[in-house]
């Protein structure tokens, strides 16, 4: 599999680290609900088809990106940068 890093271009997946389900959003800092945190840490939908994933180009520029990927065909639909410098990378 290859991912297209917004900064470095298409690179082998071995250069990247999977950082988890990008649809799992951490509750706000002031949210102390155990249920909300439990859902963030443990609840995953494991979809059959399109999935949004967070990847980090750890062996490259270390940009985080949201990868939309088909879990059945492994087709990568998009790789969008996230983080404080996301706008500059787009």
């Amino acid at each position: 599999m290859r991912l297209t890093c917004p900064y470095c271009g298409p690179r082998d997946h071995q250069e990247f680290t999977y950082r988890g389900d990008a649809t799992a959003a951490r509750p706000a800092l002031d949210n102390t609900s155990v249920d909300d945190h439990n859902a963030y840490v443990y609840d995953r939908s494991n979809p059959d088809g399109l999935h949004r994933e967070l990847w980090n180009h750890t062996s490259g520029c270390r940009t985080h990106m949201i990868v939309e990927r088909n879990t059945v065909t492994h087709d990568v639909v998009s790789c969008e940068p996230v983080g404080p410098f996301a706008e500059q990378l787009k």
Partner: protein
Amino acid sequence: MSAFRLNLRDGVGTNLSDKSISFSFDGKSYRGIEGDTLASALLANGLSIIGRSFKYHRPRGVFTAGSEEPNALVTLHSGGRTEPNIRATEVELFEGLVARSQNRRPSVNFDLMAVNQLAGKAFSAGFYYKTFMGPALRGHKATRFWWVCEQFIRRAAGLGRGTTIPDPDHYARMNAFCDILVVGSGAAGLAAARRVAASGVRVIVCEESARAGGALASSPDFIDGEPAREWSADQIAELSAMDNVSILTRTTVQGYFDDNTFFAIERVTDHLAHKDRTVPRQRAWNIRAKSAVIATGALERPMVFAGNDRPGIMLADSARRYAVEFGTAPGRAVAVFTNNDTGWLAARDLAKAGVIVTAIVDVRTDIEASIRVLGEECRATIHSGSAIRSVKGMRGVNGIVIATYNELTGELGADSKTIACDCVAVSGGWSPAFHLTSQQGGKPVWDTELQAFLPGDPLQKWHGAGAMAGEFGLAQAFRSGEEAALKALADTGVAMPKQAAKIGSGPDIDGDEIDYAPAPVFEINSGGKSFVDLQHDVTAEDVRLAHREGFVSVEHLKRYTTLGMATDQGKTSNVTGLAIMAAASNKPIADTGTTRFRPPYTPVAMGAIAGEKYGHLAAERLTPMHDIHVESGAGMYANGPWMRPETYNLPGETVEQAYIRETKAVRAGVGIVDVSTLGKIDVQGPDAAEFLNRVYTNGFAKLPVGKARYGLMLREDGFLFDDGTTWRFDEHRYLMTTTTAGAGRVMEHLEYYRDFVWPDLKVALASVSDEWAGVAVAGPKSRELLKVCVKKCDVSDKGLPFMGLVDGVIADIPVKIARLSFSGELAFEVYCGAHWGSALWHALMSAGRKLDVVPYGLEALSTLRIEKGHVAGPELNGRTTPHDLGLSGMVSSKKNFVGSVLLQRETFSKQDRLQLVAVKSLDGQRIRGGSHLVAGSKDEPGISQGHTTSTCFSPELGCYISLALLEGGYKRHGEKLFATNPVRDAHVAIEVLSHHMVDPEGGRMRG
């Protein structure tokens, strides 16, 4: 030479040179000829039994001439190079080759375990499941019964044995890019390669065998007036000379992955007698191709009949190849049994090479006159509409019994006729080798005309050509190769000139017109053991039994019978097995479906996958002071990727004596230790304080400039993640240190929060682990040492209080000095730019000379922190919380941070959780790490109540001690238990203590 070596001449032994070679098999010396495979050389020497089968220990011989071989598995070489389960059909013979047969006791010709043949019923389909996964047996759970039996069964049913000696060879990983990859260099691959190469694109051609050309090497046909093999040699020479073409021979494409990535193994030195140690033994290639032409040919499949596994029975085209390519007669008298024209062609070529063909037995009655002529050419008796009822001979073939056969009903007549022969060349048709595209998820489609599965529609950029795509025969191979080439070129976006984009008529071919489509006959059912999967000893009856027991899906059939699950992955048995399954369930083969092939195509050496990530080529990380440690006589120790000094042994000292001496010297005077391996992260920005406050459990918002603080990090689930000190250099600048092992994952953790969770915080992170060298100076005389050498700053208690941080200069080196203690003694950490590391070390050593400073290693560092009760990796094991390690005081209740919410979970406050304690040995015995804490005796230890984590001999306490995690440990100080370690045969009486064993009030480090 032997009776089996044919008279070598033009067209007989085309692969052989005239050089004689000696090799050994099962300790006996034999001779072969350069160009032989081990299999052809063994056959030429008259050896028919090469191994014993997996379950029944039946004698087995050479069955094929290629990588699909199920039977002739051998163990090659000796010592660290021992390699089991290697297909003798693929091994190129070289001078001095050592091979052994497998799965035989004591010898391949006389095997005690062959008694398993009589116990056939016991080993039928699903044997393992029925016997061991079933209900409880006399009070034992069935799985327990399995443990008892496993050792015997594993020994009885098995293949070769590997070695535990390290592999002395090295391997390389390669990455390659090309426009078009051509897999296979037979007629179709060659045609495709020629066409794409001419357009100038970058081409890689992978060929599994030693020479490019595939089936052209043994083809009886003439191309453009030349023998096919000579024509192909010229073509390959032309291709090799082109700058845009690389031809990799002895290279098996093993896997086809996403993004048109191919994985291939190139065997670089395996075939050489004298191996050049400067080149790797094998190379593992990752090849990325914009498009690919898959021209992997087809695998001949056998027919299933009673006794079809006897040595001397082999595939018809393989028998033909042994005669033509290797000048080896597969037998003295060969009978051919076939359901298609291939068998007839084999008979004719065998006879032409000088092999006696006694009979051709064909299940068909309707045979073309042009094919019958082939039989007449070899003067064999012809039995059409007939089939083999049984095979005579136990350890080989000495005849076959045939009967009339009704192709429509599948029934054998009552008649019988015996034909004397010692070899049966069998052809049951051809199965296209679409393993690679199947790996990709391509769904094979059954072709009733060809009686074969074809690869189906591409899911990626590949195009099939030749027999792989169902295009059998030379002319079709050339045409389909060119067609595939044009499609592949279109994928790469190369515009073809109109003229070039036409398919030519191809070269002029003069050869036999044969029809590769077989009659739809897969099995002759006459009772008696008929094998489908020769390597896993799966019979036709096993397949039917599985069906009767309700295993109707092919995936279930495969797992229940283990059909196609051996090291050959059922290359010669899959389709036959499916056909028998389909017949049993009265369904067409098309509806039965196939299983998906998985990489690798053939077995791969583990070393090739590990490549340079393992062994002497693996990357090592060295600290700036590495050379000094080595020069000082330190034993270096691999701590993850880092090489660290274990102890600085004095002459004659053991490791234990050395670390005890070093530990005592620190507690009594002063020692220095290299701490450069700690992870270091530069954290900057106006929101750096807020960021740190969110990722640490304790408060960081109010850490003053010029101070350091110890911090704990949790994961979101509330478990401890890492620890370390963070130093505030400036209003907006911090240096975070992490554990050595945690450096990478802490960086990723912080980046995750910075980028994904709180991108609004203005904070920048940079890994600076390699930018700084660090030395810890520890012991009651550490301040005295610094006073000797430090300039431009005050290191007195007032100038540099506990957890304070100052800038200074040592021997002209700018340094940062923090007063931190891991040992529990008065101590400092001195950091400088990495390139100053060794100068700093020397400066500190010479400043401490009068104080008898000692360098200390990882062992003493660890001993000091264990005595002090400081936690490290073994305690931060991913299953402990701050509450479990006596660190509740570090958890702020005034703020929210990563992990704060889930740390509140009820289960984390249970009093019976494993809690940090220390234990000390009461009987003088050493305590092993990972020992279980139990109340009982060595023989009846009882239930584990916890385990030891970090152990050492404590000079301070004068006995062996360990940190440990013990159920409800905080309230059990003073209790007496045992630390038991059955693996190491140890059972040590211990007493539970508080983990604060040295200076619990902390007076020393604050003093």
